[in-house]
């Protein structure tokens, strides 16, 4: 037997020469390792593509083509215009004259009429009239007007609209683009930062240029207030019970099973719950941030409970024994010693749970936070909770579902804002963890 084994022994040769079989095995090893690298690169590649397409498509939402024209209104001109029958037409003519002289001064010669200006800039006449009626003291001094260009003109600068694809309509005609080019050459049309996008409200379906995300940010804010106010105390209380007090019995098991299953229930099902219980059954107002907050609370609770329990578990038993040893009650031990020590971890988990809730869309669609509802800022705190409003992700969905491609840019822009919020929250969570993390 010994001899047989000696004969079949595979490697009698020197250790330093690699035999053929080992070479093959090492090649397989290299291949396998390569699969891993490729897999990771694929993942990172997707991340980069995602980031690039968000940035490339979203950044234009933050700029807006606008006409910047310095304009002096004399008292005679003002009185003259006010005395006419078509007052805004008179103001528009004044504006056109000013625009024409500005173009001539730059040595550019283009023909255009009032209708073209209306297609480019909307009702300039009434804007100017309202300004001077409100600020009569500005008459006689040069005033710079910044007038937002219509969304098609804006799209022309951003490459969404081109001479080849443009079909003449009441919104824009191909011939108008000559004027636009001339204005751009003269430096009258400029790209300016679009504050309206950040602070404004949603706009009607044919005005993508005027759409802003500001109101739905407020909607999200009120929703997050509800989520924070409910899920933190309830989540912490539930975790304390389960981690510190719960006896081993069927009831505790039932709670545990429920929590772990709720964590994996699809978010849309929570939307159905919200619709059936909060709106159909309790008659709470539809589309209200309060209801959205309640639904998101129920959805976030399992996440918060799981992370809170982990933080409580990380506090070593010796701390509890020390407190009990000096005669503290179980409740005092938990609230005076365990909870403060676990607080940083609980806070981190809560912030991450909130960030998750902030990005959640599907349940909000079912409770009616979709469509043209983020129209105006709420009037007060109560109105902020119960008046119909949208939320950031629901607003983005609303824009993505509209037919006008001009809204897509807004949707991407909205995503940038949403991601900035999420990134900030996660950064705070990471910093908290780094700063206060305690290793026992």
């Amino acid at each position: 037997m010994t001899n047989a084994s000696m004969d079949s022994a595979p490697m009698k040769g020197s250790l330093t020469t690699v035999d053929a079989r080992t070479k093959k095995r090492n090649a397989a090893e290299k291949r396998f390792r390569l699969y891993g690298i490729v897999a990771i690169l694929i993942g990172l590649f997707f991340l980069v593509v995602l980031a690039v397409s968000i940035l490339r498509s979203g950044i234009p939402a933050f700029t807006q083509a606008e006409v910047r024209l310095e304009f002096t209104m004399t008292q005679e001109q003002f009185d003259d215009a006010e005395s006419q029958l078509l007052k805004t037409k008179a103001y528009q003519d004044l504006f056109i004259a000013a625009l024409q002289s500005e173009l001539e001064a730059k040595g550019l010669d283009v023909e255009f009429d009032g209708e073209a200006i209306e297609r480019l800039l909307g009702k300039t006449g009434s804007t100017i009239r309202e300004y001077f009626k409100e600020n009569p003291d500005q008459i006689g001094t040069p005033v710079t007007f910044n007038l937002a260009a219509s969304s098609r003109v804006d799209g022309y600068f951003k490459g969404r609209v081109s001479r080849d694809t443009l079909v003449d309509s009441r919104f824009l005609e191909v011939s108008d683009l000559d004027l636009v080019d001339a204005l751009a050459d003269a430096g009258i049309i400029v790209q300016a930062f679009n504050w309206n996008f950040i602070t404004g409200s949603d706009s009607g379906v044919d005005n993508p240029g005027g759409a802003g995300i500001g109101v739905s940010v407020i909607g999200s804010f009120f929703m997050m207030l509800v989520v924070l106010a409910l899920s933190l105390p309830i989540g912490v209380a539930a975790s304390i019970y389960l981690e510190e007090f719960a006896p081993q019995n069927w009831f505790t098991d039932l709670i545990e099973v429920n929590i772990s299953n709720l964590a994996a229930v699809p978010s849309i099902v929570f939307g159905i719950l919200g619709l059936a219980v909060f709106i159909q059954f309790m008659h709470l107002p539809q589309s209200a941030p309060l209801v959205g907050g309640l639904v998101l609370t129920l959805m976030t609770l399992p996440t918060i409970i799981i992370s809170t329990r982990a933080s409580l578990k990380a506090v070593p038993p010796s701390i509890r024994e020390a407190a009990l040893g000096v005669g503290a009650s179980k409740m005092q031990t938990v609230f005076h010693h365990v909870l403060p020590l676990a607080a940083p971890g609980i806070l981190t988990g809560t912030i991450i749970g909130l960030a998750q809730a902030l990005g959640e869309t599907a349940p909000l669609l079912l409770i009616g936070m979709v469509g043209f509802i983020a129209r105006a800022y709420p009037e007060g705190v109560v109105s902020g909770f119960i008046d119909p409003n949208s939320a950031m992700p629901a607003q983005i969905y609303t824009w993505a579902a509209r037919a006008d491609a001009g809204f897509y840019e807004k949707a991407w822009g909205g995503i940038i804002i949403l991601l900035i919020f999420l990134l900030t929250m996660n950064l705070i969570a990471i910093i908290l963890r780094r700063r206060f993390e305690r290793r026992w």
Partner: protein
Amino acid sequence: MPLLWLFLLVLAIALAAFVLARSRVLAMSGQDRRTLHSLPNYYGSNAAMKSAIPALLVLVVWLIAQPFYVNSVVSDAIPDSAIADTSSRSLLLAEVRRAADGIDLAVSAGAMTEAEARDPDADVETMTATLTEAGAIVTSQITQSVLSAAQQFRVLNDTGYRIMTIAVLLIAAAGAFWGIKETRPDFRARNVVEQGIRVLLIAAASIAILTTLGIVLSLVFNTVEFFRLYPASDFFFGTNWAPSFSGRGGASDLGILPLLWGTFYISIVALVVAVPVGLFSAIYLSEYASPKVRAFAKPMLEVLAGIPTIVYGLFALLTVGPLLVSVFGDEGLGWMQAGTAVMTAGLVMGIMLIPFVSSLSDDIINAVPQAMRDGSYGLGATQSETIRQVVLPAALPGIVGAILLAASRAIGETMIVVLGAGAAARLSLNPFDAMTTVTAKIVSQLTGDSDFASPEALVAFALGMTLFVITLGLNVFALYIVRKYREQYE
């Protein structure tokens, strides 16, 4: 908001009880606080707790119960003859409620006085006119029976809330009185308060059960309602999905099979993308990567998991869809009609699931004991042989569990399919066709102003029920496998 005031009033009573009980026990103890059983604050808390908690409990129960009572009384009072011209009692009740809301609005806007609003002999036509003028949306002419029912509804509600206010305040005061009265130095206030806190903690933990119960009940009730209007066998075995849009026509085909097929097809495409990439990433990160690579690549991949699904939805609709069309569309291979398709949604969902699969598998691979690897290395196995023949077989149950969890995620995912998969329900094998899923149809049937009593809206609850049962089954099974696997190595 009178409700808010009532709430604040109860809190104020509780606060007063706290202060009184605390000073009472301090006065009783004289100079020596050590004669007290508990710290003075516990005596205060005891009184506050006894005043606030029962009162608030009654308030909540009352608020939930009263609408039922009022509805049933009003419903009984409506004569059957009034129902004939509308379709059902529940629709008529909804109209009654709208009319009552309208009257409330008119009263608060000053368009009519409270006495006018309650006048049983009020003329129906002038009433309608006043309501329309006040801006209350009245769909049509109010009938006499609706008006009187609405008036009765208002009166009942009014009295109900008045009795509730008195009852709640009385309970709060009685609780406060009891709490203050039992305050004596030898009273074990701390134990009682702690018992109370314990009950609160249990209540908080029970919310998980209540949530599940709420989900199940709201699904079951509405699903049963749906099956009363639409045969269950047609729903489960129908191969055609074509709801009529009028909301009233009975010509809807509501078969779930095309939706289930779309759901599974998209999920399978997603898993085909996510499982190999996620699994190999996990293997590389846990077995090969240097700490530096791991510290960089792992969080980077996890960023993919932190991105909201609406972002992926938009990515599918506006980036991946057009990209696929340019390759597989009419100008390329001609397989694809539009950007929304199974492939689009599946691919993007796969990207979303990569970190999910990889971090779960990473945990599971790391749980395989090092001794197992050493045993294999000691026999002269290469690292890949060790992974393929020892580590992966050992981790297999856990990895299967992780994949099942990912599948349940994919099946329940909504935003990506709403935006990326299309709206047409179809039983097709071509992955470049647009298809739709259970979740996408839940959204489309429940958004908009559809009437919740129609089968077209109620079907969403039956879809939700199906979704809930499937994902719950997958989760329970997957968690069971993973737990069994963990126990094996503990």
